[in-house]
């Protein structure tokens, strides 16, 4: 297993229970989930490794503070229903978090076992509990008496869904506005089926609907209604609109046919199911695909391209593997599937034919210089090292910025230079009275769980704000 990292000397108990997976040779040809999930035996074996620390560090590492030792103890006792109830006390989307959270840098990074061996596989156990519950049929908690307060949530991604669920559980009437036809935000359009099955997103949304939350898809705040109009109609507003605007490199040839933003490429594939011939949306296929970037989105794009039938898929990243922001697990999965990693390489120009179709990407070699603002060594071009990689499809996965549309017709909402909303870190309160914000629209592109953490904090603050009204 990829997690072993040469830890051959540790005792058996210190080794985590491996995750059953589809073999790389098979999975590179289909969109089915890669990780298959723990069996009951796997879960029991893994849960038994937890030391039930008196002062659990893992909980501190979780942006939504799930009672990790508490739920793992219940798993040990084979009380899986109790375990999921415990998780759901603080986390409304465990089936999603169990799959896409970067546990290795959060809860698992602080696990005491990790100091000498391997940390408890908290994420896998969380996923097991959530999947167990879904197989049994999800229980909907009782919703308290309505408070009579109305809250608008703009955006149905992880931040919005979490805020909506928490506010509904507190008895507030919540309406979620979503610009696309399907709820889930990046969970629906961005993360591929093989990492997060859309059926799971659908069921999580359904659960939140059962809490009494109303979803309004195809509803664009900034066009149908302004933020100011929402403020008049609702007692409070939560903005969880994310960072959806794709960044481009600004290099020549970037508008040739076959150059996609990762957002467009993944939306066509995930939300619009371009891989399924039954669906009408198409995506351009190429024998050679070049993906630019080193984050999870780049990995998702590259692995999707491979599954669509590309012969060679390269990831072009200007720094080294150490500096890649993607999860280790995703990098390993991509390598196992045969993605070529061209590190310390940066595109300088995209080449095309007379019909404006992409033919190749011209790149330059890079070396690492002094650390930059991010603390990582900054990449510097090596003069005269240009070379070309053939490509019919190029996917630009170098990050996103907040969509400015929401700001049309909203007085007094402070933004900073990057276009993100200025909001209090603890409460999500913005400069505009009654408007709270959280997730990528505040931080810029980040993780699902940090967005959920922000949604959670904001829900608490909104509840307090409403009580003062």
């Amino acid at each position: 297993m990829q997690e072993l990292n040469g830890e051959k000397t540790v005792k058996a108990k210190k080794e985590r229970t491996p995750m059953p997976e589809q073999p790389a040779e098979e999975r590179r040809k289909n969109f089915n989930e890669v990780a298959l999930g723990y069996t009951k035996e796997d879960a029991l074996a893994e849960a038994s490794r937890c030391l039930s620390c008196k002062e659990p560090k893992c909980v501190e590492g979780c942006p939504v503070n799930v009672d990790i030792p508490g739920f793992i103890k219940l798993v040990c006792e084979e009380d899986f229903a109790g375990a999921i109830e415990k998780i759901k006390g603080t986390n409304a989307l465990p089936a999603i978090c169990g799959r896409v959270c970067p546990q290795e840098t959060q809860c698992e990074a602080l696990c005491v076992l990790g100091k000498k061996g391997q940390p408890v596989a908290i994420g896998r156990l969380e996923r097991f509990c959530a999947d167990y519950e879904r197989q049994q049929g999800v229980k909907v908690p009782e919703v308290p008496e309505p408070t009579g307060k109305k809250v608008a949530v703009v955006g149905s991604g992880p931040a919005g869904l979490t805020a909506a669920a928490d506010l509904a559980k507190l008895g507030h009437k919540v309406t979620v506005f979503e610009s696309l036809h399907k709820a889930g935000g990046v969970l629906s359009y961005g993360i591929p089926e093989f990492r997060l099955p859309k059926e799971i997103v659908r069921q999580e949304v359904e659960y939140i609907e059962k809490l009494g939350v109303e979803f309004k898809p195809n509803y664009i705040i900034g066009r149908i209604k302004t933020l100011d109009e929402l403020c008049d109609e609702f007692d409070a507003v939560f903005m969880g609109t994310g960072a959806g605007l794709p960044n481009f490199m600004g290099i020549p040839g970037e508008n040739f046919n076959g150059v996609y933003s990762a957002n467009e490429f993944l939306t066509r594939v995930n939300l619009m199911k371009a891989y399924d011939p039954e669906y009408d949306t198409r995506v351009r296929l190429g024998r050679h695909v070049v993906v630019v970037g080193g984050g999870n989105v780049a990995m998702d794009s590259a692995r999707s391209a491979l599954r669509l039938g590309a012969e060679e898929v390269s990831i072009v990243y200007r720094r080294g593997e150490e500096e890649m922001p993607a999860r280790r697990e995703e990098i390993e999965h991509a390598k196992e599937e045969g993605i070529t990693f061209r590190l310390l390489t940066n595109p300088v120009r995209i080449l095309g034919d007379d019909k404006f179709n992409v033919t190749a990407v011209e790149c330059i070699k890079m070396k690492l210089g002094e650390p930059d603002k991010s603390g990582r060594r900054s990449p510097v071009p090596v003069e005269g090292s240009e070379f070309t990689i053939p490509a019919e499809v190029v996917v630009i996965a170098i990050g996103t910025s907040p969509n400015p549309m929401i700001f049309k017709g909203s007085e007094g909402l402070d933004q900073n230079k990057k276009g993100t909303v200025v909001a209090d870190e603890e409460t999500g309160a913005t400069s505009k009275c009654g408007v709270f914000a959280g997730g990528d629209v505040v931080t810029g592109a980040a993780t699902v769980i940090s967005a959920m953490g922000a949604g959670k904090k904001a829900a608490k603050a909104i509840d307090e704000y409403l009580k003062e009204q």
Partner: protein
Amino acid sequence: MAYKVLNKEEIAPSVHRMVIDAPDVAKAAKAGQFIILRIDEKGERIPLTIADFDKEKGTVTVIFQEMGKTTKQLAKFSAGEFLEDVVGPLGTPSDVRKLGTVILVGGGVGVAPAYPQAKAYSKAGNKVISIIGARNKDLLILEDEMKDASSELYIATDDGSKGHHGFVTDIMKQILDSGEEVARVVIIGPPIMMKVGAGVAAPYDVEILVSLNSIMVDGTGMCGGCRVTVDGKTRFTCVDGPEFDARKVDFVQLMNRLAMYRGEETKAVEKYDEECRCGLH
């Protein structure tokens, strides 16, 4: 969530007008904006310009020509049926204000988006000179509506079956040459017509706007698929447009990007026609 089709009629061969019940969209709609619709769960999201809207009745009207699989499917709809999704209004509304004289040039189904503009410019107190055209008189749409909404209306057909025998841009040139003081020209139609029209109007001291129709997915700036180069910079048609300064648009790039899925589109249409003939649909 579904959106009821209230009326559907063929107003010219393969050109259809559809009135859709979409109160939220109608309430917020302004001239120059568009919607994106999806026929069913497996359908693609296609952008269509809003040809008319009624805030009181809560309806929006679109006019489309049968081109690809989705528009062919859409043509088979009748009143009482439902569309899966209608989202909008999208795009930045036209900057309509009192300018003096405005020439509106509409070609083919491009007359449809020109119509709400004609109404809006007239309402704002402008003298609106509309020039509409088509390949032949049967393909000409919205003649009466445009007449009502404009101070003057000119017609051009490629084959001379009605009005001027030639192009809409010929009439536009004549008016610009006549000494009439024109503040703005708005050209809406097939990309080649807009390119040619922009070229003809370029030497005159007049503002020229075109309404672009790029391929897009979400229509909110998220996918970036509708990018177009204007004044050397990449802009998104869906949020920065659809209207741009015609003198600065890279039409060659626009036309090449519009051709991006032509092969796939042809295959989809062939497959669809085949299925229809077999009675599978």
